[in-house]
């Protein structure tokens, strides 16, 4: 078992409370969380990534119970076991593609140990995601949004973290590119070691996943 959530609830500052369904993710799972805007998809993902502090309920990631962890330990757990593609991508604009992707393993010995040769591995992932080879040393700010999304995915995939999370990774892509991108993503991930959890409101993604959870509060 990679991830298990139990009776998660989140109270917003507006006073609204959202109860999330219990979730169990095993190796090889491809899970899609859908739902209309404002139903709490991103909050759910942020709780699972340890970016938001859990208020009620429990999350267990490969034996690590989030409620008992300090924020700094949670940061390390995330670095070691989760690759997260944020909705806002969160790439550092003045770093090159190579430097941004490398950030994915820079702070995790565990993930670094899984990558014997960093640069060839980054090139391999970027090619698998449909990016040209000469992109490595270009600054992020010179890239299109679609290319930036692929770079963010490459960062999350580098070092084969057990759980790959992505928040609306295709929001700025047209339907054809969306299909290509998801196909590339699924081809790149290793189903014998990893699981995917993606949040999206795009119904065209449903066929690529073996579990679909619809949030509806």
């Amino acid at each position, binding site marked *: 078992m990679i991830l298990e959530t139990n009776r998660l609830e989140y109270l917003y500052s507006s006073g609204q409370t959202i109860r999330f369904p219990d979730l169990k993710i095993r190796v090889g799972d491809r899970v899609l969380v859908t739902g209309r805007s404002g139903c709490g998809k991103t909050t759910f993902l*942020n709780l699972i990534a*340890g*970016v*938001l*502090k859990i208020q009620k309920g429990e999350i267990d990631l490969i034996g690590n119970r989030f409620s008992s962890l300090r*924020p*700094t330990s949670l*940061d*390390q757990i*995330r*670095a*070691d076991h989760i690759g*997260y593609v*944020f909705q*806002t991508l*969160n*790439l*550092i*604009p*003045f770093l090159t593609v190579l430097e941004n992707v490398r*950030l*994915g393993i*820079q*702070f*995790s010995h565990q993930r670094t140990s899984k990558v014997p040769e960093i640069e060839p591995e980054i090139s391999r992932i970027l090619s698998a995601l449909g990016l040209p080879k000469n992109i490595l040393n270009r600054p992020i700010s010179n890239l299109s949004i679609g290319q930036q999304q692929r770079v963010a995915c490459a*960062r999350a995939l580098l070092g084969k973290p057990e759980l790959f999370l992505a928040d609306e990774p295709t929001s700025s892509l047209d339907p054809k590119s969306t299909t290509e991108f998801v196909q590339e993503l699924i081809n790149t991930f290793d189903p014998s070691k990893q699981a995917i959890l993606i949040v999206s409101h795009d119904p065209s993604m449903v066929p690529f996943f073996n579990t679909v959870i619809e949030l509806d509060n």
Partner: protein
Amino acid sequence: MRSRALPLALVTFTLMASMVLVLSIDRIQKATEAGFSQSVSGVDLIIGPKSGSIEMVLYTVFHLGQPINNVTMKTVNEIESSPDIDWLVPIALGDSHKGFRVVATNLPDYFEHMRYGGDLPILFSEGDASSKISAAIVGSTAAEKLGYKVGAELFITHGSGNAIEKSHDDFAFQISGVLAQTGTPIDQAIFVNLRGYELVHLGWQSGTKVFGVNNVNIESLPDHALNPKTVTAAFVGLKSKFKIFPFIREINKFPKEPISAIIPGVALAELWSIVGLVESAFNLLSWMIILICLIAIVTLTIASLDSRKREMTILRANGASLFYLARLVIFESLVIGLTAVSGAVLFVTIATFFAEHQLSSMLGIKLQTSFLSLDELIVFGIILGAGLLSSLIPAAFVYRRNLHQGLS
């Protein structure tokens, strides 16, 4: 760092400029103090009538005020014959010329022995020191203000006033040399031959002229007639510096006349401590600049906070520890701080090297081409420390707030 190259370069430059100011003020302060205490150099002792050391230094070095008593030449000659004495130059004060004080002394001996600003010789911008009885040498400021050149004649006035009836208008001194600027009281003085000075006072008794010397045939006067009876003080050089203190004790116990000896450097330092306000003003100025430096660092840190917070939050989201983030900003601060310090030291050292001669000849300030003193190191340490602490603000921010706030 490279993403913020321009703002970082600007802050490094601002810091460097502030540090250049701090360094310059500190060095000028020290050099001014050193220059002040070296207004007269090369002189081991000043011997004069019994009085306080500050009083004696005021009238012999700064030509301020009037000596109450004189020293007889008999005593001066007796002291000069002491085996410890290397050289002795008497001076007589009391007269003036158009507001500038007249120093009567042995010419050219005075300029051979006297030094200023450490070990700088007193140089002539025009002419030289003649040994003629009518010789006069004018300080640079006096010459400039009075428009005097070599060959011009001047009459000295009895006392420090300008009263015509007190003028020694029966004997003209002729300028044989004009001195180069020294930045010391020498610039404001007019030096005349001591025997000439004695000559103009021949017909005077108790400050009143009894007869003029215009009809006196100088050649017919016996040699001893122009030997001064009394002088105001004497500058002394000893054969060995080790003899200074025993010699002072000897002078202070001189049985035949109440006289005293002072070490000019010590008396000048004493006087400087009285003028301590200048030093406090310098210190205040330095601390104000340091404060501005600190404000500059904190302002930049706060100004760059937003972009830094986002960058750091992304790093944290990827697992960067607080230690890593702290190390990152401290390294950056150190690079800025050390670049500014080295730039400032380099700039001031080069500027000192080029301005050294100009400053010493114009203001008598002798800047030392030195690297960093302990005081300066402490000040820079404070500035660097404050820079490091303020650079930790964004890192602390990132760890204090919820991670998702910085990522949305």
